[in-house]
């Protein structure tokens, strides 16, 4: 049977069991606004099968992070954000907010295909969710192809158009007279880190790359600081080329241990994202974009890049910046050198910035 009622019955959020006076209540709107049962449609490849002694770590309108006993973060997500390696994509209505239902510290358990959050009305049905893998290595990007270069140029233009006041890109956008000392300091650091990272990437030099990444981790604004989002995008670029560039798998192998070590320098949410990225697993918006670049499909690149740019306030923009550098480090270095630099002189101060990991 494939009529509407049959097919969407289990796939939509509704009250699990609620009683109401039909003539007087607005059950439909209540159910739509305040579901207590949601269906998960996707489970990330890295989500552990058991959530032992898990509690809610942090909660936002569209996501809820659950911390397991070993410190792993599993995220309940509004499905509209896309799947994630440690994510459980939930079919919640537009108006639903996780932080109206859940508080940090809430105990979480999984039994019989249901994830239950104690002392809340929320139950997540996992029984229909499918495993989702965010491995971009299945979609090989050829950074030397004309199509890829066109795609990267388009993403750069989109960043210029949309990110003048967001994330790392904003550092190059602010006029000298309005840039704060904080911005100037950030710009000085980027002026060292990014060319260093570009050089290390071209040379496939793990030591140089680690040095640059170490100076970027936990750097900048945001819940997941801009530098962390940048690193995730950068790693997505390397992984997306790894199936056609024999130099990359060993390089990624060399980077993994230093990355696992340096994540202690940032917050728990970033730690999980970078760990996933070092294992070659990324969020669905990034994977979709990488796939579109690999296919040389300009229209899809534009759509998926626009979707990625909508992640957080600056997270998407910062990740795209990292993706650009990872795909074409030479062009990236040339591009940033053409950007206006505020609060000169920068060059004299480069050497004074400590970059030791």
């Amino acid at each position, binding site marked *: 049977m*494939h009529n509407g*009622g049959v097919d969407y019955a289990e*796939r939509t959020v509704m009250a699990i069991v609620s009683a109401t006076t039909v003539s007087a209540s607005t059950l439909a709107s*209540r159910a*739509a606004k305040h579901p207590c049962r949601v269906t998960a449609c*996707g489970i990330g490849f890295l989500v552990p099968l058991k959530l032992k002694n898990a509690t809610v770590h942090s909660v936002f309108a569209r996501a809820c992070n659950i911390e397991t006993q070993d410190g792993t973060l599993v995220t309940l997500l509004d499905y509209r954000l896309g799947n994630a390696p440690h994510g459980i994509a939930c079919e919640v209505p537009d108006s639903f907010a996780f*932080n109206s239902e859940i508080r940090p510290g809430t105990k979480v358990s999984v039994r019989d295909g249901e994830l239950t959050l104690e002392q809340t009305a929320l139950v997540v049905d996992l029984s229909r969710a499918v495993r989702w893998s965010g491995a971009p290595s299945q979609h090989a990007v050829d950074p030397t192809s004309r199509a890829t270069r066109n795609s990267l140029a388009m993403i750069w233009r989109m960043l210029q158009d949309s990110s003048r006041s967001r994330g790392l890109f904003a550092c190059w956008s602010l006029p000298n007279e309005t840039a704060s000392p904080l911005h100037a300091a950030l710009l000085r650091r980027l002026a060292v880190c990014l060319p260093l990272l570009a050089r290390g990437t071209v040379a496939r030099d793990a030591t140089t790359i680690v040095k640059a990444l170490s100076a*970027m981790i936990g*750097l900048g604004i945001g819940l997941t600081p801009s530098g962390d989002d940048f690193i995730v995008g950068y790693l997505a670029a390397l992984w997306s080329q790894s199936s056609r560039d024999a130099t990359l798998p060993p390089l990624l192998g060399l980077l993994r241990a230093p990355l696992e070590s340096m994540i202690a320098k940032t917050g728990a949410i970033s730690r999980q994202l970078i760990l996933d990225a070092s294992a070659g697993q990324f969020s669905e918006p990034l994977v979709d974009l990488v796939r579109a670049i690999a296919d040389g499909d300009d229209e899809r690149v534009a759509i998926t890049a626009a979707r990625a740019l909508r992640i957080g306030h600056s997270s998407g923009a910062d990740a795209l910046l990292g993706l650009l550098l990872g795909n074409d480090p030479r062009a990236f270095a040339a591009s940033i050198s053409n950007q206006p630099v505020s609060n000169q002189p920068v060059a004299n101060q480069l050497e004074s910035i400590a970059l030791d990991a």
Partner: protein
Amino acid sequence: MLESPHSKPATLFKVVRREYRDSVSLMQLSSSLTKMAGVSQASAVMATENNLALLAEARFEISGSDAGAADLLIVVQGDAAALPAAIDTAVAHLTRQADVGSSAGRAAVLPRSIQSALADAPSANLVLVSTPGEYAGAEAMKALRQGLNVLLFSDNVPEEDEVRLKQFAKERGLIVMGPDCGTAIINGIPLCFANVVKRGAIGVIGASGTGLQQITVLVDNLGLGISQAIGTGGRDLHSNIGGITFSTALSDLTADVDTKVIVLISKPPAPEVAERILSEAARAGKPVVVNFLGADRANISRPGIYPAKTLEDAARTAVDLARGIAPRASYDLSLPMPSGLPKLALEQRYVRGLYSGGTFCYEAAMLLDERLADVYSNSPVRPDGAMKDVWHSHRHSLIDLGDDVFTRGRPHPMIDFRLRNERIVGEAEDPETAVILFDVVLGFGSHADPASELVPALRRAGEAAAQAGRSVIFVAFVCGTDRDPQGLARQTQALREAGVHLMQSNAQAVRLAASIVVGRAPARARPRDVRPVA
């Protein structure tokens, strides 16, 4: 809270332990602090090692802080006298946000059992159950034992459980709507996937969710209203269930003084069940319109019963009867071909239907199959019309994208348009595609703004065809009302502006699509054999 020993410029900071705020909140906080009088610089960042170094480099004096990467660090710089107020403002900002969340949380707490729900609403008489199928039967039975009617939204409820629940309910004068009941309107309240329609004199009983939506919407659009719309679940008219819910609902609507005309909707029922339901309907003492999609209307017709071929026919017949007008034998409106249709290339011969509603897809297959040969579907009306590969269209293809094969790991296509949008572009790239036919379903449960999802895909599809020197014709209908959350007028305007030829119903849309390609593609050799009620 610590103040730096240096007086100019002064720095004040506060560490908020394990505070996780989204980036937008942090930006808003920084921005609002910077605008305060006496504050020259402000920052709200995670206190990571690199950020602490950056702040020091920017001459924010934060020595003595023991903040770590999990903490939020709020730093303000400027006139010493202004800074404490700025920090207080920041703390108030964070507290206010937390309060908004928690108060919403308290309001959102729902009962976790039928018993506690009844404590909140002691006069309730209906329970909506939506649990995994294996548990749904037990929950429904708990409700029935407490004298409550049940709307069973869950699917995968075993057939023997359905019989047991429905028999139990019948013996106690209760009703079980479902399982797999996706649509109902009870006393004017839309439940599950349903539209906001006027209240009125027409009662509808249906084994099809989208069928119920189409009838109730068309009745509303034709100016009348709905007394009750009762979903029965797709299996109710099977032999094993025996139409228990249909029968109960028919009896209820017969007794309901507000209901003047009754409409029954289903795919062809089991013959013996159909016979019994039709006999009961004939004794209702009210006109009963019957749309058993694809069934032989001659086998349905009897005094007081009005067979209808399509969902639109059923709605129009019911409206005419409610207005005291003799219904027509057919409402197959011979609508003129819309002007401005683009010229098609010779090889553009086929209709490609991309449906989110299963019943709409089935009705489309039935209507298209009457006029054209080579109609294939994953919801076929004939066994030889089944698609071999649902991912690739062949000749005329009508696809129910709500089928399980398409929805594994994804929400239903009424909510999530990604798959359909990709398919729209793919069909436009096929040089044999003449018409792309689709439904747009509004109402509770559906996407908040379907046109915003569809229009970019339609534009891409049009551009893909244009690059190959072709034009593709988009034909669709919107199942919705102006009181639906998405707004019918807003949706239709956006779709029309994107070049979609919008019809009032699925039947009209299918007939227009057929008219566009007839003569280009092989026609059916002879009128289809009438189908028995089976």
